[in-house]
């Protein structure tokens, strides 16, 4: 609270994520990513300006809540200093927020919504069907599921059992995987949905084991059971060195390795971004994150970080366009819409006409000796 | 006779309702003292104060020369000041034996407890017959015997009895009163509350009359029995108590 700072004009980056209760494991690491981006931006902010995080929680009583999400977006929209919002985390919250964002012109960039219909149809853009205000930096389920299926194929898997967490992301991913894997000639032995927040999957896995699969495909995140499913496979009679485990970016976190422990090896997963390890910026991000929050990054920390960077960049650009004067939200929106060739720790991307990321790269990873190990990456759009 | 229990200027409240207005009373060693009064006069409240179940707003309870006003009920019981409460309060889902054992909760010598148990069974042979029956399935009279027996198991110095004859058949009422007299003869001091004032005063040495939270009379039992006021208010004219 120094006078110099007080004189700076504040540009707010809104955040709408679930950060309390059970959903804290989703929201907090993601929000941390945003915080980091904003702090970094302030080290080189345009003169006379200062970025601030305005973070709202969309969980009520510990569970993400679409009502709360819509309310938050309205609140943020009512504050002219907010130039854009990073969020939401959950697709059904997005379904309630997109109409509000669309109506009020407040840009929304989701780090994690992967449900294709959110962008690909106009049904949520009720006020202005042809204005895009909702964007995302992650690939949609259809892209990733397909990549997963191809990956499975290249691994030589023939019989796969599909399990998902019965949430929008996990179910969507698993469905696409199942469809594509079958189309590619693979056989799906069964498809089961688990209930999030469960601890015991042995009954299901015993049943899975009895079908003798080559691999289990898991659609979902570590916190909804991705790690436990893998870890309990052994005790249900599936040798993890023989039965592989395939999933999406929901299990691309250190937690997965810790929870699955011995069984983590021989797991494979897709990530909807190029290999971050190859870019120095990602390394410094991971280091900075660890230093500040004393924990490993979450599955969507990097996406939160990048989403915030997109808004910050658009705001900075607007300021430049305005000759150092304060940006207006509509201008910022326009600049976000025009984002292209944006270099980030999750790759270089822009937004297409629906607001989806143009980054077509899906990276394939495995876990070897208890460590994440890059396999290769494929450009999905090239196909 | 030495004073065993003394209440000094007790005020007691339920929320904002004052149930006792500065009452004072005394029980000497070896006595049977009757406390009579109409419904809601505060008799039960008095016993609750003595046993520590209700904290008085003012006043003191002195027992064996010591102030026990602030002691918790279990510590008061530990001093052999025992109450058989209104409504019997049997542990319904425990057997007769367990109920009696709980009566001896504060006692440590197993042989003495066994002796007391035998004593109770001599007083109430019926309880011995029902030793493994659940308290809740006993008939009203049997429950009353159990309540008194349970109180005796703690080897009371002073026994507070709250309406021991309530709901009992005439025959059992006689039995209970003779048992009370018996217990007293064995050296237990007794403070007795009874609606059945006539009989209570017949076995008591002294008595107090409580009216809406105030002690209005105190005298020897014989004098109270003879008193016109007591007769009119508590002994009844036309209705002869059994």
């Amino acid at each position, binding site marked *: 609270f120094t006078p110099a700072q007080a004189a700076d004009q504040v540009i707010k980056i809104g955040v709408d994520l679930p950060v309390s209760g059970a959903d804290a494991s989703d929201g907090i690491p993601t929000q941390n990513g945003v915080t980091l981006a904003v702090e970094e931006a302030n080290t080189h902010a345009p003169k006379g300006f200062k970025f601030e995080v305005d973070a709202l929680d969309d969980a009520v009583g510990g569970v993400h809540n679409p009502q709360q999400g819509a309310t938050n977006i309205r609140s943020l929209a009512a504050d002219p200093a907010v130039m854009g919002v990073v969020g939401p985390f959950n697709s059904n919250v997005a379904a309630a927020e997109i109409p509000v964002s669309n109506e009020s012109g407040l840009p929304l960039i989701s780090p994690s919504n992967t449900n294709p219909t959110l962008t690909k149809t106009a049904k949520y853009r009720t006020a202005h069907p042809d204005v895009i205000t909702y964007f995302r930096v992650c690939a949609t389920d259809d892209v990733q599921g397909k990549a997963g299926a191809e990956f499975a194929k290249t691994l030589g898997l023939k019989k796969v059992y599909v399990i998902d967490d019965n949430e929008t992301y996990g179910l969507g991913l698993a469905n696409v995987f199942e469809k594509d894997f079958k189309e590619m000639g693979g056989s799906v032995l069964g498809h089961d949905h688990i209930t999030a927040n469960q601890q015991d999957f042995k009954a299901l896995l015993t049943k899975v084991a009895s079908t003798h699969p080559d691999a289990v495909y898991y659609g979902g995140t570590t916190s909804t059971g991705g790690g436990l499913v893998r870890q309990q496979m052994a005790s249900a009679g599936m040798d993890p060195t023989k039965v592989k485990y395939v999933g999406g970016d929901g299990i691309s976190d250190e937690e997965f390795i810790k929870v699955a422990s011995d069984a983590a090896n021989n797991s494979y997963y897709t990530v909807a971004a190029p290999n971050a390890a190859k870019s120095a910026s990602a390394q410094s991000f991971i280091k900075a994150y660890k230093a500040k929050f004393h924990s490993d990054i979450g599955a969507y920390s990097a996406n939160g970080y990048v989403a915030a960077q997109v808004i910050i960049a658009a705001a900075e650009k607007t300021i430049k366009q305005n000759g150092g004067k304060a940006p207006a939200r509509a201008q910022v929106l326009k600049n976000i819409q025009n984002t292209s060739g944006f270099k980030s720790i999750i790759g270089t991307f822009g937004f297409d006409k629906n607001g989806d990321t143009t980054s077509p790269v899906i990276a394939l990873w495995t876990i070897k000796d208890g460590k994440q190990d890059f396999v290769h990456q494929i450009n999905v759009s090239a196909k | 006779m030495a004073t065993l229990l003394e209440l000094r200027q007790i005020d007691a409240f339920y929320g904002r*309702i004052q149930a006792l207005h500065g009452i004072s009373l005394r029980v000497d060693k070896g006595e049977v003292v009757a406390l009579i009064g*109409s*419904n*809601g006069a505060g008799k039960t409240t008095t016993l609750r104060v003595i046993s520590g179940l209700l904290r008085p707003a003012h006043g003191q309870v002195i027992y064996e020369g010591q102030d026990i006003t602030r002691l918790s009920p279990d510590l008061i019981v530990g001093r052999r000041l025992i109450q058989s409460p209104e409504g019997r309060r049997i542990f319904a889902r425990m057997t007769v034996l367990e109920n009696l054992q709980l009566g001896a909760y504060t006692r440590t010598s197993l042989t003495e407890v066994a002796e007391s148990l035998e004593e109770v069974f001599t007083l109430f042979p019926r309880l011995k017959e029902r030793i493994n029956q659940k308290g809740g399935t*006993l*008939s*009203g*009279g*049997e429950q009353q015997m159990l309540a008194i027996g349970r109180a005796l198991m703690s080897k009371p110095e002073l026994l507070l009895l709250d*309406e021991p004859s*309530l*709901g*009992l*058949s*005439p*025959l*059992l009422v*006689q039995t209970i009163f003779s048992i009370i007299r018996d217990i007293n003869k064995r050296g237990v001091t007794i403070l007795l509350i009874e*609606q059945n*004032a006539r009989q209570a005063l017949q076995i008591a040495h002294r008595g107090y009359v409580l009216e809406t939270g105030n002690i209005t009379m105190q005298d020897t039992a014989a004098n109270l029995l003879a008193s016109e006021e007591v007769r*009119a*208010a*508590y*002994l*009844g*004219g*036309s*209705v*002869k*108590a*059994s």
Partner: protein
Amino acid sequence: MAFFALKNVTKSFGGLVAVKTVSYEVQPGQIAAMIGPNGAGKSTAFNLVTGLYVPTSGEIEFNGQSIGGKKPDFVCKLGIARTFQNIRLFAFMTAVENVMAGRHVRMGAMLWDSLLHTPKQRAEERHVREKAMELLRFVKLERHADDYAHNLPYGFQRRLEIARALASDPTLLLLDEPAAGMNPREKEDLMELIRAIRDRGTTVFLIEHDMGLVMNISERIAVLDHGEKIAEGTPAEIRADSRVIEAYLGKSA
């Protein structure tokens, strides 16, 4: 057909036979009593009548109808009301609300009326309140109409329970130990009240251990022991019955 009759009624709980082939008839306009040692089965008999228990065998007749095994609310509707051995008032309702609740079964307001407070409903409420006040006056509790039942002294609670029972316009009133815990003075008042109830046209059937009261007001007495009826007759007959003396009254009575 009898006004009210127990016909060979038996009730057993597991192995225990609480009421054993008891037959007993109460005439309209009577004050009848049932006495007997603790655990004789008196309260159980009442519970059978009001539908709390289903008889193991036997018939209970009321106004020509068989009511054994019927639900309490149905029995109440037919015109039998009761009080309880341990007072069961609606503790945190006021006295007048207690009595109004007792009137429930004689009211006609339907869900619709309750939801919208139709004029019909309002008129009925007014009427029921008046009726309840009248009953409170009858039991001399009008001054306590707005007191919570819980805060009333014991004796008053007993009377309130009677008023509540009377609110359903019963033709038969069952009282289970109405004088328990009352002092002699209060018992005298109670006797007067019971007589007045009878005089209003309600038949009274009571259970009581207070022989002064029982002998004084009842016209007929049944004596139960170990679930069986061991005697029946006028107070004088009962007092002289050696079996009753031995089982129940004791020598001093």
